[in-house]
Every structure is written in C-alpha cells, then in structure tokens.
C-alpha cells in the first residue's frame, strides 16, 4: 500500500513537471490556429483557422529569414566538417608535443563569452567588409560549431581500435586511403550526430546574428525579436512563426537522440 502511494506521488510530480515543460509548446500550437478576433475572448474552444499560416507565407519576408538561417547554418557546418574532421583525427591518433594544449585551446573557444568575441569583431568586420554578409556569419559561427565537432569526433575516433587501421595499412592501403575508406565509414554515425548537434547550436544563435548582421542577412531569432518589439504584434502569426522555426530543430534532436548525451557534454560523458 505504501509503495503504491509513493509510486502515485512520483507520477504526480512527473506530470506536474511535464505540464511546466510541455504546456507552453501546446499553447503555442493552439495560438497558431486561433484567429486574431478570438484571441482575447476564448481560451481552448474556438474555430481553428489556417489564416495565421497563410499570412506568414503570403509575403516572402518570413521565408527570406528562414532561407538566410539555412544558408548560414549549413555553410557553417559544412566548413566545420571540412576542417574539423581531420583536426579531430589528428588530435585523437597522433601523439605529439602540445596535443592537449591545442585541444584545450579549441575547447576554450566554445566557452568564450559571445559578447567578448563580438565587440572587436564588429570593428574588424566593418574594416574587412564582412559585416552583414553570409561569409562573415559563417566564419564567426565556427566559434560555436568547430570546437563542438572537434571534441565530439575526437572521442569517436578514439573509440576505433588502431588495429583496424594497422591491418588496412598492412594490406597495402596508403594513409589517406585508410582514412577515407576505413575510418570515415566507421565514425559516420558520430559525424552525423555531431554535425546535427552543432547545427542546432548555430541555428539557435542570437548574439552573433544580432550584432554582426543587419539588413541583408537576418536570421529567424533576430527577426522574431524585432517583430515582437514592433507594435503590430499578431499573436497567432507570432506563434506560427515560432513553431515553424523550432520544429525542424526538435525533429533533428529526436533523430540524434542516442548521441545527445555524448554531444551535449562535448564527449565527456559517453551515455
């Protein structure tokens, strides 16, 4: 009997927290199907409408922000993969002087306060003509994605037995062939997971896009905050816009669920 009561209380506590965590998202869905005129006098019962979504996509503006977000995020991740994969391999496989120091230097970028990076870059970018350009944002996003990718992948590389590589080399493969044909396929799940996780961080970034981009390149986070600050807030459209910006990220996170723990702790916890 006592056990049953405890189990019931535990479930009740869990449900309470789930309400706190999930209700805002459910409410967002409800709002996004609500007509502006029902906003103030109804709560749960109303006639659903697609009006908000229609309005959202009727002018190209929102789609434009979305595209900008896609361009800079995917650009940043592609660049990180190209330079990060070899770097992670080198840090995992070779034993050389200063290895841990170099690895730590990369890690420390991830923990550099964003505002500190942005303030001087704001000047530098205007000098170099990188302010408010795709290239500029893709470059600065390396602060977020490259350390993450290098540190997570380093762990995955370390998991592969060196014997595998040595055997392939004995079979006459060159060093590059071993890397491309043997090692890469083995770390592919880890690569996909860490790339998607860095994509989430870059996609969600606000500070860099707020201060290093302006009229030409606007990401969704910045655009939505500007919209909230304007006085013509249509709550339903706002909710729809927020949902559409968050949904791809939630789906991505679900697809790499198994690797999430390892990724979020930058490889330190192999969950």
């Amino acid at each position, binding site marked *: 009997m006592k056990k049953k009561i405890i189990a019931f209380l535990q479930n009740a506590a869990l449900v309470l927290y789930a309400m706190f965590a999930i209700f805002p998202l459910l409410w967002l869905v409800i709002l996004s199907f609500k007509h502006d005129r029902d906003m*103030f006098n109804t709560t749960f019962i109303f006639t659903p409408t697609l009006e908000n979504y229609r309005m959202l996509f009727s002018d190209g503006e929102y789609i434009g922000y979305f595209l900008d977000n896609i361009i800079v995020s995917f650009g940043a991740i592609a660049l990180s993969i190209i330079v990060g994969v070899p770097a992670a391999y080198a840090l995992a496989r070779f034993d050389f002087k200063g290895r841990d120091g170099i690895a730590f230097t*990369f890690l420390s970028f991830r923990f550099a306060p964003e505002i500190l990076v942005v303030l001087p870059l*704001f000047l530098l970018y205007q000098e170099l003509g990188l302010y408010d350009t795709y290239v500029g944002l893709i470059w600065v996003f390396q602060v977020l994605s490259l350390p993450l990718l290098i540190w997570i992948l380093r762990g995955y590389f370390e998991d592969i037995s060196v014997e595998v590589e040595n055997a392939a080399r004995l079979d006459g493969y060159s060093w590059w062939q071993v890397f491309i044909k043997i090692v890469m396929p083995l770390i592919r799940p880890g690569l996909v997971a860490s790339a998607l996780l860095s994509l989430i961080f870059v996609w969600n970034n606000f500070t860099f896009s707020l201060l290093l981009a302006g009229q030409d390149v606007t990401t969704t*986070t910045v655009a939505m905050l500007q919209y909230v600050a304007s006085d013509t807030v249509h709550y339903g459209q*706002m909710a729809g816009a927020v949902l559409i910006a968050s949904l791809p990220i939630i789906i991505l996170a679900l697809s790499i669920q198994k690797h999430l723990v390892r990724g979020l702790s930058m490889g330190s*916890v192999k969950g």
Partner: protein
Amino acid sequence: MATEAYEKQAMKERQLTNKVPWKIKMRPFLILSPAFLLTIGILIPFGMAIYFSLTNYSFKYAEYMFVGLENWIAMFSSPSFWHSVGVTLSYAGLATLIETLLGIGIALLLNRENMLARSLRIVLIFPLVIAPVIATIIWQLMTNNSVGIYSDWLRQLGITNFNWGADPSTALITVLIIDAWVFTPFVTILVLAGLRSLPKAPFESAMIDGGSAWFTFKNLTLPMIMPMLIIAVLFRLMLSLQMFDIIFALTRGGPGDTLMTLPLTAYTEAFTYKELGVSLPFMLILYLFVYFLSHFIVKYWTYTQNKASGK
C-alpha cells in the same frame, strides 16, 4: 581497451619518429593547420579586445587615443560594476542550483520503468533545443497582460501583483523560470545517462540490507553519478554566467538596472552609449573568470579519464 590500443599506437608513432623525423613529426600539425587558420580570426579579437580596453575608443568619434588603465580603474570604482557582478553571480548561481536540483529529481523520476516515464524521457528534451530567444518569446506570449494564459490564471487565483519581467521584484524570478525551462533538461539527460549506466548489484544488496531510499541515494547513487553531475553543473555554471539572450529578449537588462549582468552592461556601454573602450573590461573580467572555470573542467576531465583507465 581503446586507451590500451592508443598507447600502443603512440609507442609505434614514437618509434617511427626516430626513424623518419621531420615528415611524420609535422603531419599532425599539417592536418590541424586549416582548423587553426580558421580560428585565428577568432583569436585576433581577443588581442584587439585587450588593446581597445586601454583606449578611449568610441563609435561616436573617428579618433581615439591610448588612455592606459583608465577604463579599468573607472570600472572597478563604479558601483554599477559591483551591482553587475552581484546580478551575474546571483543569476548564474541560482539558475545552476535550481536546474541541478530539479534536474536530478526529474532524472530519478524518469529512471523508472513505466509508460509515463518512458514516453516523457523523449518529450521532456524539447525545450532544450529551442533557441533561448525563442523560448523567451514563447514565455512572453504566455505571460503578457492581454492574451497571456498564465497571467489570466494568476488573475483568477486572485494574484494581481505578479508582473513577470516588468516589475523589479519579479524580473529575476521570471528570467530564472525561463532559464530553468530551457536548461533543466540538460542536467536531466546527463544525470539520467549516469543513472542508467549504474551496476545493479550494489543496489540489490542495499535493498536486502534494508537501507532506506535516502541512505541508498546518498551513499550509492550520488557518488556513482558524480562524474556526470559535475560536468553538468560546470557546463551550466559557465554558460549561465554569460547568459545574454534570455535577459536581452525579455527586458534588455531592465527594469532599471535590475537585470544588468556583465554581458548586458558591456552590450549597453558599447551599443547604446557607443563607448567600446569602456565596455570591454566588463567582458574581459568575465572571460578571465570563465577561463579559470573551464581549466577546472579540463583538469577534472583528465582526472576521470585517468581514473577510468586505471592510471
């Protein structure tokens, strides 16, 4: 296993280095160089930040000059700096404390085998991947005075003086709620991963010996999940010390200077008052603090790794 193999490889590499020194010795650096070249552009700003903190650089004037430690001295002697330090530390400390306790609790509740726990394990991660700015907007939609459902519920409960971000006495609580909403799952999933990797035997014998739940938790569970817990706490502490997005999106540091943390102060000095030279020391001092914290993490990290490999 992996470490052993790695040691062997390292030995081999060392032997190779003796035979063919230069080419192989340079190989790792060659492979690392693109990543380095790319991030050097991020290193430059650190140098620039230190340099400009010693000048009176302002976005208002074309010229600037070297002023030595003037900005630094002005910062340390201004009450607003110590206020910011206080706000930053209380925000980070409280956020980390709340998220850690709540995170452990939820992880323990999720670590049971029933339908509810199984399905919530997935769903409860959702807030973690939503951008903090977007999360703030969501909470604004929930709490705003005209259509916010939470404000409405509070009114029906007869609470009319809770004004969320608009009131100095509730602003901190509001940003902490939003921070906890987003980041509690971070602690939860790390701790949960720890709990799920625990061996069963010690818990069975504790149960046979009739140890209370609290006794088992304190003496068995907690020490065993400590490595994950410490990583989670340090990550949370480091990132909440620098939190900018949530506070900026909610109140821009207000009302008044209630939520003026170090990042918010630096932002305001640089972009509202246009005084870059004045703003930089605020961030540099924060960076110094975070840097030492991250050193601690790496030390701890190597310690656990060495322990795991039995060194």
